């Protein structure tokens, strides 16, 4: 299996505080990896380092074997990385379809002049983006939401739309930051089923940060536990779940 995403000894230091301290991890093609840990363990910071929103103090980030540690976020997106956010970050004031089209434009080419002067490429870019966005909406069975303004959506649907937007980028590696937070148990179960469907159909690798074991256990091939910025344990879900150190960090149990 080839590594889609690789972190080598990544560290992020805020002042004197090591938010992330020497994290190494690998996500292989088509694999689903769960990143879990208590609040403040450094999961989201790790995510931001991977996507390029947070510069790493040390270590390297590799995408498909290429070092992207110094590359800005949009370059990494062009290399197949895609993400959702812990707090949903849809583009307010735009419809669901328009939100997806922003992402779908990754595959189109039209500059300021082409757009402003209605040169030939403009219409094609808009058509392609709309087709792509509608196709993804249909795939996730969200077509009925297309024309709704995104701030009017309940959290559950907003998360689905954010997933749809991320998929419009045709990612090879999808990063999901607490996709189930704010969802009720029923919605969470549906979301897990949907992610499984996405995985089996599109075959993209996923890295997800999640608290809810009900999401992590059925989905993940591999689980990484973080605490205090370090990797505490790593392995298949069941094995990690029974790891005493993990139970101590997570449940506050004494290590016997």
């Amino acid at each position, binding site marked *: 299996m080839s590594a889609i995403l690789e972190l080598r000894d990544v560290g992020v230091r805020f002042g004197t505080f090591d938010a992330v301290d020497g994290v190494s991890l690998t996500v292989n093609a088509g694999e689903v990896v769960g990143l879990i840990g208590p609040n403040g363990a450094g999961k989201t910071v790790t995510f931001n380092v991977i996507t390029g929103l947070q510069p790493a103090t040390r270590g390297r980030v590799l995408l498909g074997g290429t070092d992207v540690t110094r590359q800005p976020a949009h370059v990494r997106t062009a290399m197949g990385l895609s993400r959702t956010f812990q707090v949903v*970050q849809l583009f*307010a004031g735009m419809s669901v379809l328009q939100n997806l089209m*922003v*992402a779908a434009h990754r595959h189109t080419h039209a500059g300021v002049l082409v757009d*402003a002067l209605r040169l030939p490429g403009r219409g094609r870019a808009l058509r392609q*983006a709309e087709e792509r966005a509608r196709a993804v909406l249909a795939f996730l069975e969200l077509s009925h939401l297309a024309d709704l303004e995104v701030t009017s959506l309940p959290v559950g649907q907003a998360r689905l739309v954010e997933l749809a937007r991320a998929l419009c980028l045709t990612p090879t590696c999808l990063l999901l930051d607490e996709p189930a937070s704010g969802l009720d148990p029923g919605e969470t179960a549906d979301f897990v089923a949907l992610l499984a469907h996405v995985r089996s159909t599109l075959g993209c690798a996923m890295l997800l940060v999640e608290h809810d074991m009900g999401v992590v256990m059925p989905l993940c091939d591999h689980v990484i536990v973080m605490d205090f910025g370090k990797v505490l344990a790593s392995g298949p879900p069941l094995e990690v779940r029974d790891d005493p150190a993990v139970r101590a960090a997570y449940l506050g149990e004494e290590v016997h």
Partner: protein
Amino acid sequence: MKLYVSLALSGLPIGAMYALSAMGIVIVFKTSKVFNFAAGAIGLACAYFASTLHSHGFPTLLAVAVAVLLGAAIGVLMELTVRPAKGALTGTIVTLGWLLVLQGVVGWVYGTQVATNEPVQIVGDGNFIDWGGVLLYSNQQVVLLVVAAVLAAGLAVFFTVTALGTATRAVSEAPDAARLLGIGVNRVNLVAWGLGGAVSGFAGVLVAPLLGGLDTTKLVVFTVQALAAALVGRLSSLPLTFAGGVTLGLLQPIVARALQQFDGIKGTQELTAFAVVLVSLLFMKRSGRRDVGGGLLPAPLQPLPRGVFAVATAVGVALAVLLAPLLVDDVGNASHYNVSQVAIWGLATLSLVLLVGVVGQVSVCQAVFMGCGAYGTGIAMGHGVPFLLAIVIGAVLAAAVAALVGLPALRLEPLELAIATLSLSFTADRFLYSWPPLASSDGNRPVARPGFANIDPGHVANGQRAYAWLALGIFVVACFAVASLRRARTGAALTALRSSEPATAAMGFSVVSVKLRGFAASGFIAGLAGALYAGLVQGASGAAFDFTRSITLLAYAVIIGVGSVPGAVLGGMIVTLTTLTFGSTSDVANGSQVSLTTMFTGIILIAILALTPEGLTGIVSRNVRKQPELVAA
């Protein structure tokens, strides 16, 4: 060395005045998070008022005291109008309205250019005090220094020791929590604005003699130095602000000396202050709060159904074509000259619609971009480039300058960008437009019209008509271009960027590139407007593109509604009509009437922002949208 020491020290008294005015700004900012751009204008009003009182026989100190009370009253009134505005940025735009109002009122009452009134002097100039052979200070200057230092120390103590000072900080950090603790937030704000107004007013009264007499422009431009000092104080520390003002005062004579070798260079003081503003903005710690936009930056327009979009555009264009010729000259003939004006100022407004409404950034220096377009055209034509190519070169130059201005916007909040662009406007006024490489010796660089639109004797009417078609054509194309841009890939990226920068980057767009393109496109359109204006009046000069122009353009864009492309036509018509009625800003003879325009623009801006930040088109479209609901009910 001794030379430089005495040079620097010569700037000390005026530096103390920068510090004083800046403290007025800081006091207001500390509580309300609103930047008082009208600080210099308050000083202007107070200085003139004190002078009038004095000439009517008031004793000096009493005149000064009453004038300072006026400053406090203006501050209180400003607080009342800023209060309804949502967000610090909107509040700051309200203070721009006050700048216009105060400048207008003073200009109307006293006449704009003529400084016939003598400034009030607390102590006569009579005696000089020798400072160890390095420098001579007049009594007046020593008094200024002492007064400023005492006042600064007093204010600093006031804010750290008294209950009101503590309350001020509480209000600024967490207004709602302060409210729950029983602090009267409105009362604290009123006191801060009153105090700030009084201090800024006092600074104006004191500094007037140092600026060589009363002058409506100089006292307003004085704001740029106060801004610089306030930024050095990080908008919070009064002692640092004082140090900043004094340092700026010490620095200016040295910079002026260093730049002396360039012949005809002017405005080095403002240039120094501008540099300080930029440097402090770039080194200022980011507040991390991105909600300063408040209500001013409207949510992007809902996607109109294709049919409606076509109709809206058609109506806009029809308005441009049909209504514009209704503007007639004084003999009653259709005035092609005025049609050209509508198109040109419409273009200028359009550039702001693009920048504020689509890119989501505020620029108070759009007239500077116009100036770049005008001078660029003039310079290119001086090298034998034909007119139509020259205006493109001018516009490209303006686009490049706009991209440069946009560069700090990558790091700055919209409010900070407003500070930077306003400072640029002031600096362009004093420095850029008289800079020898740009301006000709008389400050007016000739721009010849293209052959098909020349106005040689016997060809005037035809020439004006041809030029009007040219300007109108470019304007209509630009309107379509902005509308098209907004609804395509670039528009999607720009709109997304305003909502969430991290998410836009995660969608594969470079934040840097998208923002800079937005700025460049806006600068290009403004540059075209400036270039066409230069062709219309056959010359490029800075007077048409002064800071008042930049502010009023922004005001019109906000009044009309920054989200509206057809609204740009309205902007063009407002500028043209007011010019027709009251004369252009560069028309010195009509000074009083121009001031009326300025004043009313300010009043309307303040009123509109108090009612709705969406502007006129916002009110209209909201009412239109409401109707179906009524029917349904």
